[in-house]
Each structure stands twice: as C-alpha cells, then as structure tokens.
C-alpha cells in the first residue's frame, strides 16, 4: 500500500514537560508529493500541529526543517528524495530553541545576520540616476544574493551549534561576502575588522554541511574562503 509512516517531533511548552516523537499514518495514494503536503495531511488529523510555511514554493524560506536527518525546505522536497523504507522523520531545525513542534526561535540566527550589516554602505553622494556597476562587477554577486535566510545551512553547522552567539554562521557569512564583494559598498575595511576575531569567521572548520543542505544550491564555504583571502590581503 502507499501508507507513509510519519514520525513527528512534538513539543508544546504549555502542556509537555519534554519533547516526544509522535507517529502518524498518512495515505499518499502512491503520489510523489512534497513533505509540506504531508504536513498538511497530518494537520488534518491533529489540528494542534504547529509549523511555519508561507509561499510553498521555495522562495520565502519559512519551512526549513530536518527531514530524515537532513535540513531542507519541506515545500520543495519530494518524498522520493527523503523517504527511506516508507518512513519519514520530521524534526525542527537543530540547534535553535524550539517554540512549539517544528517552530524554532530564529532570534540568534537573525542577530548574527544583523551583525554583518546586510545593507550597502556608501558615503559618496548618489549620482542623479543610480550607482552603476559593470557586468563583471555584477557577476560577483551571483551565488550570493539568492540566499532566502531559511537557516538550513547555519543550523546544520556544528560550529554554529556550539557558538551561535559568537560564530556568524554560513548564512550570515555568505551575506557578509555579498556586501564585501559589492563594488558599490565602501565599508570594506570596517566590515573586515569586525570579522577578524577567532570566532566570527574563523570558527568555520570547512566541513561543508552548509553546502550539502542549501536548498538554493549556494556555497557558503566558498564565500568564507573569499573572506579569509580578503582578511589576509588587508593584513600586514
């Protein structure tokens, strides 16, 4: 038959003293649907289930979660990609405090994002129309600007698990490099001086979990390597 056994991480701080796993049987009728569709089917059985979702097409980054041990977006992950032996285990993103069921507190993640000042800094008076970039300068931002901040990468990174308050994490560092690489940004030196301590960038040990899980196919490890090169080039 086409029954899928779904094992779900459940935790309601108002009624549960500890998190537990709950089993659900879902009839997929043999279709290769997305994990998010399965969650909606579970919610029909138990309307108390809490999870985040919005665009359901991999653009908003709301439904990042741990599916059979690997982080990803539930809305663009088909069952055929994750289900093993008719079983699907869903847990919240690892390393962040759980608010309820699959919903995590992203506070620390956003704090690290805020820390790298994710906006253009340019003191030169703006030209009448816009600040121009050559096609080559614009090309440098490809593979950087596409990040949707779903937190799949940072929450799969052991360095972020152990030091989420000090290590910026792959998502934040990808964005840090996005602004370091931008020809219109003038705060390169200030940005670099904020990153040269032993934690912010250098706690990365290059295990590339971030690259393995990124639903947008981005490469934070490469960006981190580029930041290290820039730090080295700027140092004496």
């Amino acid at each position: 038959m086409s029954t899928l056994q779904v094992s779900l991480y459940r935790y309601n701080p108002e009624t549960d003293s500890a998190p537990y796993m709950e089993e659900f049987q879902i009839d997929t009728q043999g279709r290769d649907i997305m994990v998010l569709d399965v969650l909606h089917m579970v919610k029909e059985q138990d309307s108390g289930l809490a999870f985040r979702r919005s665009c359901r097409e991999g653009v908003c980054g709301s439904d990042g979660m741990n599916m059979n041990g690997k982080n990803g977006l539930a809305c663009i992950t088909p069952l055929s990609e994750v289900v093993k032996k008719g079983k699907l285990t869903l847990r919240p993103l690892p390393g962040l405090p759980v608010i309820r069921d699959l919903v995590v507190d992203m506070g620390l993640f956003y704090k690290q994002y805020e820390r790298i000042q994710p906006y253009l800094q340019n003191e030169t008076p703006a030209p009448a129309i816009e600040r121009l970039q050559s096609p080559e300068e614009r090309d440098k931002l490809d593979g950087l600007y596409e990040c949707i901040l779903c937190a799949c990468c940072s929450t799969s990174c052991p360095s972020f698990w152990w030091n989420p308050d000090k290590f910026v994490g792959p998502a934040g560092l990808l964005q840090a490099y996005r602004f370091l690489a931008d020809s219109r940004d003038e705060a390169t030196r200030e940005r670099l001086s904020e990153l040269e301590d032993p934690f912010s960038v250098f706690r990365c040990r290059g295990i590339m979990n971030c690259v393995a899980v990124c639903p947008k196919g981005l490469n934070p490890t490469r960006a981190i390597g580029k930041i290290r090169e820039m730090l080295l080039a700027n140092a004496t």
Partner: protein
Amino acid sequence: MVTNITNLGRSGLSDWLVQRASAIVLALYTLFIVGYLLFSPGLDYATWSGLFAQTWMRIFSLLAFVSLSAHAWVGLWTVTTDYLKPTGIRIAAQSIIILAIFVFLVWGIQVLWGA
C-alpha cells in the same frame, strides 16, 4: 567583533595562518622522518644519533617542535572553547594544556641538545 584573550595570536586571522604554516612544517618533518626510516634499513643507534647531532637536523627538529606546540595550542584552544562552556573549567583545562605544551617543548629542546 568577539573579544578573546586566551587564544594564541589575539586575532583569528593570525591563529588561522599559524595553524596552516605549522601544518606545512609538520607535514615536511613527518615526510622526512618516515622517508629516512624507510630508506635506512638496518638503522642503528650510531646512525640515528649521528643524524640528530647535525646542526641542521636540530634546527629542523626544533622548528617542528615549535610548530607542533603552536599547532596544538590553536587546535586545543578551539576544542575547549567549543565544548567547555563554564569559564572556570575551560580556563583550568587551558592552563593544563598550555603547561603540558610548555613542558614537552622544553623537554624536547633538552633531548635535542642534551645528548
């Protein structure tokens, strides 16, 4: 910017550079020692002792020991800051590690020049 006072070079950049440079020295030293052992069948004490009696070998060995010390401190400092969260326990562990590294380094120098 995260302030640190117990790591080797005060900056993550210098620690990172020290880690990589010392790794290269240790790789060269390891290759040399393994190669020497492989290409010296029937190695006896006199030959082994003679190798270490030469000044260049002593300098190479001391360079490897200093590299090992720096490499170990940067690496173990990282491990302790990852896994030992209570400050007292972490500082205590780091003190023991730095003392051990210091003792081994001085002992190594004594072995090199004491023969």
